[in-house]
């Protein structure tokens, strides 16, 4: 892009590093900043350019990665004490793909511990702050990735989304965040929380960047047996300013009591805008929406209890060394290594899967999942895309919800069903309420990312919310 002689990759990276120096002590988005490696990579890109080599659109572009994505030789903590010293011996597939394209890794970003949280407050290290109001949360669990993009510390980041963890922080921080269809992006190297729900996705300033990043990370990976043999189309071609005649469904269950009036107003205005641009909007129903959250909080902890069983202090990570036998070592290591929210979910999951309770909880939740999936399939028989709020509220103040687990869980009401059904969803900025960003969520059929980009792009080109930047007055 700008690298065509106007400025060098090294200069771009240096500019972002200066920005980080300026604001990071206030935003606290990073766990690890990799200045040396970043500059080395930028200079390598400059060398390739000087040698006349063709480069990808992402070459020389500074990025941040959520700290649950394995980076070879670089600390990867998942926001947890149990991995406070863990240096992966391999790169996640998405990491190596982006490295091959010349993207410059600036650092690893803060997150809720093991991706369990909706505010970035369960990180065992420190909470990240929302660049729009430093007393408020950036959302979670990809709070660091969202804040870093919003604060201009990175050009884009990768987050992960299991129940809304890309879309909700994107909405709270006024940026674009997409959770792709389950199976589109390889999960190899992403530390698993709930394997049937997790997806990696781009978090960017605008829709164009989102499409460019998704292009590089999407596509089957032999190292991830849950990645699908589907050839991603050219997403750039989807960036067309036209939605005339498109049928947009408005799910009535997403506009219930509990939705903040300011959010409702901004989202309704966005829907009116889509109609003005030629789309045909109609009400649809996703009748099992209210059950999706309950089912999710059985399924995801159940899968997590299994996935997190590997953290035992034996071969990597934190170990309690005061134990006299291995059982005591496991119990004390995990006691000290995991934070309260992680322990809560491990216990919930263990209970739901235990003998005598499996049918009543886990199996029942899997049936609810089928019903949720069917709700979406039925809606898509009549409309092309769904439009709804991303979150019921704007970013709340730090400390406001962390003492009440259930209050925290309810934040993900509009994002969870999308993960349960495995369909794609994108959040784009659609205005402010009380000075804080509001996100519009667009949801599509499986593998309809190109259509989601078209709608998001059209909306973006005809509004200017994506250009708004937080004031972030720092000295």
């Amino acid at each position, binding site marked *: 892009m700008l690298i065509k002689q106007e400025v060098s990759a090294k200069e771009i990276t240096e500019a972002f590093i200066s920005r980080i120096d300026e604001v990071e002590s206030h935003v606290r988005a990073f766990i690890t900043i990799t200045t040396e490696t970043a500059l080395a990579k930028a200079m390598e890109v400059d060398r390739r350019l000087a040698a006349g080599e063709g480069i990808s659109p992402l070459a020389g572009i500074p990025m941040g990665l959520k700290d649950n994505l394995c980076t070879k030789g670089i600390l990867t903590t998942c926001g947890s004490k149990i991995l406070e010293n863990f240096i992966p*011996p*391999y790169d996640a597939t998405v990491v190596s793909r982006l490295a091959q394209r010349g993207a410059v890794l600036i650092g690893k970003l803060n997150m809720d511990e093991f991706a369990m949280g909706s505010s970035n407050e369960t990180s065992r290290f420190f909470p990240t702050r929302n660049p729009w109001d430093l007393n408020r949360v950036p959302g979670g669990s990809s709070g660091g990735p969202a804040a870093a993009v919003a604060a201009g510390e990175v050009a884009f980041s990768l987050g992960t989304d299991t129940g809304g963890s890309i879309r909700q922080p994107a909405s709270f921080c006024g940026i674009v965040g997409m959770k792709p269809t*389950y*199976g589109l992006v390889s999960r190899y190297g992403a530390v698993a929380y709930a394997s*049937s729900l997790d997806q990696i996705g781009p978090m960017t300033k605008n829709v164009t960047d989102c499409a460019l990043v998704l292009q590089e990370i999407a596509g089957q990976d*032999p190292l991830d*047996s*849950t990645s*699908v043999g589907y050839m991603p189309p050219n997403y750039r071609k989807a960036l067309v300013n036209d939605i005339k005649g498109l049928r947009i469904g408005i799910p009535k269950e997403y506009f219930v009591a509990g939705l903040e009036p300011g959010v409702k107003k901004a989202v309704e205005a966005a829907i009116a805008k889509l109609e003005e641009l030629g789309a045909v909007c109609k009400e649809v129903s996703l009748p099992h929406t*209210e*059950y999706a959250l*309950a089912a999710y*909080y*059985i399924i995801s902890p159940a899968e997590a*209890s299994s996935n997190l*069983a590997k953290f*035992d*202090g*034996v*071969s*990597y*990570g*934190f*170990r309690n*060394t005061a134990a*006299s*036998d*291995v059982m*005591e*070592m*496991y*119990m004390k290591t*995990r*006691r000290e290594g*995991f934070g309260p929210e992680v*322990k*809560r979910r*491990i*216990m*919930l999951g*263990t*209970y739901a899967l*235990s003998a005598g*309770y499996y049918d*009543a909880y886990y*199996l*029942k*939740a*899997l*049936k*609810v*999942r*089928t*019903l949720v*999936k069917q709700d979406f399939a039925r809606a898509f028989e009549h409309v092309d895309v769904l439009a709804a709020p991303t979150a019921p509220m704007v970013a709340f103040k730090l400390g406001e919800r962390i003492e009440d*687990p*259930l209050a925290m*869980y309810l934040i993900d009401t509009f994002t969870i069903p999308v993960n349960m*059904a*495995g369909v794609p969803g994108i959040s784009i900025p659609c205005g402010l309420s009380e000075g804080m960003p509001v996100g519009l969520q667009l949801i599509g059929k499986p593998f309809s990312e190109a259509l989601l980009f078209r709608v998001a792009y059209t909306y973006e080109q005809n509004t200017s919310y994506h250009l708004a930047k937080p004031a972030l007055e720092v000295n």
Partner: protein
Amino acid sequence: MALAQKDVEGVAFLARLALDEEEIATYTKQLNSILGYMEKINSLDTVGVEPTAHVLPLKNVFRGDVNEPGLSQDEALANAPDQERGQFRVPRII
């Protein structure tokens, strides 16, 4: 299905998590509150509904049975909290 403190102790042991008295009491309260909310799915009629464990119809995705390079012993031991002679060392098991 209310959880008693004894149940929480049992679950914590299954999950290999050591908890103190105060934590057992707190978690019992919190888990009961969360499970109380989950009860609403019991009111749903799911007779005849197949469970969905996984959204994709993928099954048995294998690669050919061919040796491929893995981690070297040094790489595998690099993060070990305690190692001896190329092995992970742990406290007494039996």
